[in-house]
C-alpha cells in the first residue's frame, strides 16, 4: 500500500464551509460572473458558477492550466506560479494558486482589474490562513 504523505493538515468541518464562503464572497464582487476553487486533480471543491456554465469540464481545464503553469514555472527555474489573467472578448478569467488548489474567478469585460486582483489575493490569503495556519499550529 502506498503511504499517503500530504503536506496538508486539515481538521474541522468549518473549513469546508469556510471555503464555500470564500467562493461566494469572491463571486459577489462587482462585475463578477462567478468563482470556483478546484483541486489540482480537477475536482471542484466549491463553486458559484454562472448559469449555463458546465462546472466539471471548466474545472478540469482550469486545474490542468494551473498545473501546467506551476510545472512550467518550476521547470524553468522561476519560482512558483502565483496568478494569471486571461482577458477575452466577452469577459476575463483569473486563476490563482493556493495550497489546496486553484481559485478561478470569471468577470465581466468592464470589471476593474485591481478590484478583482485584490479580491483574488484576499481569497488566497484566507485559504492559506485557514489551512496552512492550522497545520503550523499542529493541526
Amino acid at each position, binding site marked *: 500500500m*502506498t503511504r499517503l504523505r500530504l503536506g496538508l493538515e486539515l481538521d474541522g468541518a468549518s*473549513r469546508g464551509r469556510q471555503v464555500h464562503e470564500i467562493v461566494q464572497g469572491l463571486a459577489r464582487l462587482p462585475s463578477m460572473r462567478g468563482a470556483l476553487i478546484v*483541486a489540482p486533480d480537477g475536482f471542484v471543491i466549491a463553486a458559484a458558477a454562472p448559469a449555463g456554465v458546465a462546472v466539471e469540464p471548466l474545472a478540469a481545464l482550469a486545474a490542468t492550466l494551473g498545473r501546467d503553469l506551476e510545472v512550467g514555472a518550476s521547470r524553468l527555474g522561476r519560482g512558483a506560479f502565483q496568478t494569471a489573467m486571461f482577458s477575452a472578448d466577452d469577459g476575463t478569467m483569473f486563476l490563482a494558486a493556493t495550497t489546496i488548489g486553484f481559485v478561478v474567478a470569471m468577470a465581466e469585460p468592464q470589471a476593474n482589474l485591481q478590484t478583482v486582483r485584490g479580491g483574488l489575493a484576499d481569497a488566497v490569503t484566507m485559504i492559506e490562513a485557514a489551512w496552512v495556519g492550522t497545520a503550523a499550529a499542529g493541526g
Partner: protein
Amino acid sequence: MSALRWIRWPGRPQRPQTVPELFALADRLRRDGRTADAARLVAAGLEREPNNLTGHLLAAYLHLAGRTIEPARREFRWVLARDPQHPRALLGLARLALEENDLDACRDSLTRALGLYPDFPEAQALLGAIAVPRPSPAPPPPSPRLDRLRLPSLARALVVLGADGGVIAGRPADVKGDGDRIARAISLATAALQRAGLGAPRRAFVEDREETFFLRCDTEITIALALPRTTHITQGLLEVNRLWAAARHELTVRPEPGRVEDGGVVDRPRRTS
C-alpha cells in the same frame, strides 16, 4: 482506527464501520478540501483491504491534490492493471502525461476513455484543448524583424508564436522552452474561456515569483513579453500591446529577395498590403 478518533463528520451519528463507508467518507472529505483527513481514512481502509480499487483511486486523487506525481501515477496504473478501461484512471494518467508534455500519451488515454464513455465531459474538454493544431492553408507568416522592435530595457525575453503555436521569432534565440509553455497555456486557456462562455483570448499575464509574462494574441500571432515581477500590470500590458502592434506591422512587410549584403540575402522590407 485510532488515528481517526478526532475526525468529525457532521450529520453522521456513527463512525464509519466498513471499508466502503470509510472510502465514502474519505471522498466526502476530499470534496470539502479536507485532503489530509481523507488521506488518513483512505490509508486506514487500504490497510484493511489492500486490493480495493476505490481506495487506490482515491489515493491517486489525494496524491494529485498534494502535487505528488509519482505516487499518483503508481496508483492510477495499479487501478488500470486491474481495470484497463477505468475512465477516471485513464483521465488521471492523461493529465499527468500532459504535465510532462507527452501529448501523444495524453491523447491516447483520453481517446481510450472516450471510446467507452463518449459523454465523459472532463475527457472531452481536455481532448479538445490539446487537439492537434491544423496547419493554416495560407503560407506561414514571415518572421517579424524583431531587431526592429524596441524592447523595454528590463525585458528578459520576447516570443512570437504563429497560428499553429510554433515559435516564429524570439529574442534571445533560445526561447523554445518559453514558446512551448506559452502555446500550451494559451491553448488550455482558450478552451477554458470558451467553456466559461467568455470568448477568444486577447490579453493575458502570468505571474511567477520572479517575473511576469504579458501576452497579446489574435488568431494569427501571439506575442509574449517577459518582464520582472515588479512591473506594474497596466504598464506591462501597454508594453506588450505596443510590441504586438509593431510585430503586426512587420508581418505586413516582406523581405525583397535577391539583394545580397554581407554575404547573405538582405531582409529588405517592402509592404505587401
